[in-house]
């Protein structure tokens, strides 16, 4: 699998570093060695991309010492790279892990990172393309790809809600006398709107509660918590739901909304006018209901000035 964003390394490691281009060539060489997936035994891959033994390639640019070969020294970094990144996605994805099981999850994450190595200075963004990857390569999650995709989207939305940008909250005064046909609102950037075929919110919450019990049970004396802690969380049953993942006073929340309210929020998020948003909610929705929703959303600070 070709890693997205990586540029080809030189055929041979530079023998001298005279220029910036030489430095880049050496760094590309090492980068390619590190991001190459580990073997099943978590060793550095034995073969370089052109078919040469990795040991030969490593020896081109890394010195051995009296205890370690060049290959072994490179392997320390390769393992460190993979373990660090896998740990990070692992922490971001308790629901996906529970769905797939530890082993399949591990295989998925390695495939994901092999295709999408980090393109950001911060590990916070590492799982940002996982949902996309699951859709692009369903073989790693079959036969539960759609559910895995929904969970991955939901878990990424939590990262966004945790530390995403908050713009100045819209106040009733800001609404002024703007007619609904002209009034355009923006949703806070930390908010994600998720329509899904499964109650992934309940599922992920149940997984987190079980994991918390597991953690407590490791120190518990009585048996009851251990039983609860080892229980498998039942898979969610199909049911169309609409979730707004948001935060309030620095705490993360998932709020379910009705379909018409969701349609209205989607329309507003897309830059439509308030009148258009109300229309998107549907003809059966009463004005009083829209007022209630809107009051709640304003109170939660969901809107920002556009």
């Amino acid at each position, binding site marked *: 699998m070709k*890693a997205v*964003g*990586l*540029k080809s390394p030189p055929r041979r*490691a*530079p*023998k*001298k*570093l*005279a*220029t*910036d281009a*030489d*430095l*880049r060539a*050496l*760094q*590309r060489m*090492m*980068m390619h060695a*590190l*991001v190459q997936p580990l073997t099943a035994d978590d060793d550095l891959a034995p073969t370089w991309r052109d078919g040469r033994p990795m040991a030969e390639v490593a020896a*081109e*640019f*890394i*010195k051995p*010492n*009296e*205890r*370690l070969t*060049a290959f*072994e*020294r*490179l392997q*320390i*970094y390769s393992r*460190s*790279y993979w373990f*660090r*990144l896998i740990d990070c996605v692992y922490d971001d994805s308790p629901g996906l892990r529970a769905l797939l099981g530890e082993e399949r999850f591990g295989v998925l994450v390695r495939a994901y990172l092999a295709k999408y*190595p*980090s*393109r*950001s*200075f*911060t*590990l*916070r963004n590492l799982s940002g393309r996982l949902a996309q990857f699951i859709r692009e390569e369903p073989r790693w999650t079959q036969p539960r790809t759609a559910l895995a995709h929904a969970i991955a989207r939901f878990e990424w939305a939590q990262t966004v*809600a*945790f*530390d*995403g*940008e*908050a713009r100045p909250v819209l106040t009733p005064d800001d609404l002024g006398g703007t007619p609904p046909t002209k009034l355009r609102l923006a949703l806070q*950037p*930390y908010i994600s709107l998720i329509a899904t075929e499964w109650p992934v919110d309940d599922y992920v919450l149940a997984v987190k509660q079980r994991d918390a019990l597991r953690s407590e049970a490791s120190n518990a004396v009585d048996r009851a918590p251990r039983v609860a802690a080892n229980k498998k969380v039942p898979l969610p049953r199909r049911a169309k739901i609409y979730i707004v993942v948001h*935060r309030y006073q*620095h*705490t993360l929340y998932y709020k379910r909304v009705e379909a018409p309210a969701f349609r209205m929020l989607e329309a507003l998020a897309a830059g439509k006018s308030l009148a258009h948003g109300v229309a998107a909610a549907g003809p059966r929705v009463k004005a009083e209901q829209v007022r209630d929703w809107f009051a709640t959303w304003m109170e939660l600070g969901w809107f920002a000035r556009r």
Partner: protein
Amino acid sequence: MPANRFNGFTDYGIGLGLRVPHYQHILEKKPTCDWFEIISENFMVDGGRPLHVLDQILEQYRVVQHGVSMYFGSADKPDRAHLKKLKALVKRTKTPWLSDHLCWGSVDGTYTHDLLPMPYTFSAARRTAEKIKQVRDYLEVPICVENVSSYAEFHVSEMTEWEFLAEVVERADCGILLDVNNIYVSAQNHSFDPYAYVNGVPLDRVAQIHVAGHTKFEKYILDTHDHPVLDPVWKLYAHAIRGAGVTATLLEWDDKIPSFDEVHAEALKANEFIAGARAARLPKSNAPARTSRRAVPTVGR
């Protein structure tokens, strides 16, 4: 050199790395701690709880920023979006100096999130120094570079690691965050004398010192930051401050993190060596009666 132009002429004492498991304790109990070092990247976010916590910490404590992803030694140019976020954080924290590592870890925009060793060459030193100057000019804050622990060396290297460090900091005219644990780890992994390293760096540029624990494996030592500081590292620390002067010191403990009090107690062990260094450096007669912040830690700020 307790206060110099590389640490903004501050005289900070013994600090701790600010870590999530300690947030609640710090915010509720407001324990005495001379200063906290934050990992810049953890707070280079657009909003939410991390910045809320940071603002509360800033109300009570002095904070210094330490980065892990500037990659001064990378062939890539500094990333403007990264720098913009970092500058916003610098303004928020008012950090008197900012440190990051003398290493590389990304190329062509792909990141390893690791601190990879440099090839110790003159051309790499020139390139790295240029990048440090660019970052300093943009951020408008003194920059210190930290020596990393390493497990590999390159054939193309033309000098020792400490010669490379000296070459870079002299060219960039920047400070040094001297990590004595990293020196010890690398000395074991590459069979050099850690004291030769300390003696070989321009100690007048040392603005801060790191101490930490490490883990020994059969064929190498790994910089794990999950243990108390081991005796050989404390001895090297004592040697470093005899040469550099009593300098802002920080304990890094990043994994298997014990209680705040335990980590703080470990950090305060540095006081024993600081007392020794002061006695060794000051002339017996007319020694100035200098009162250090370290001797009388302030509550909160």
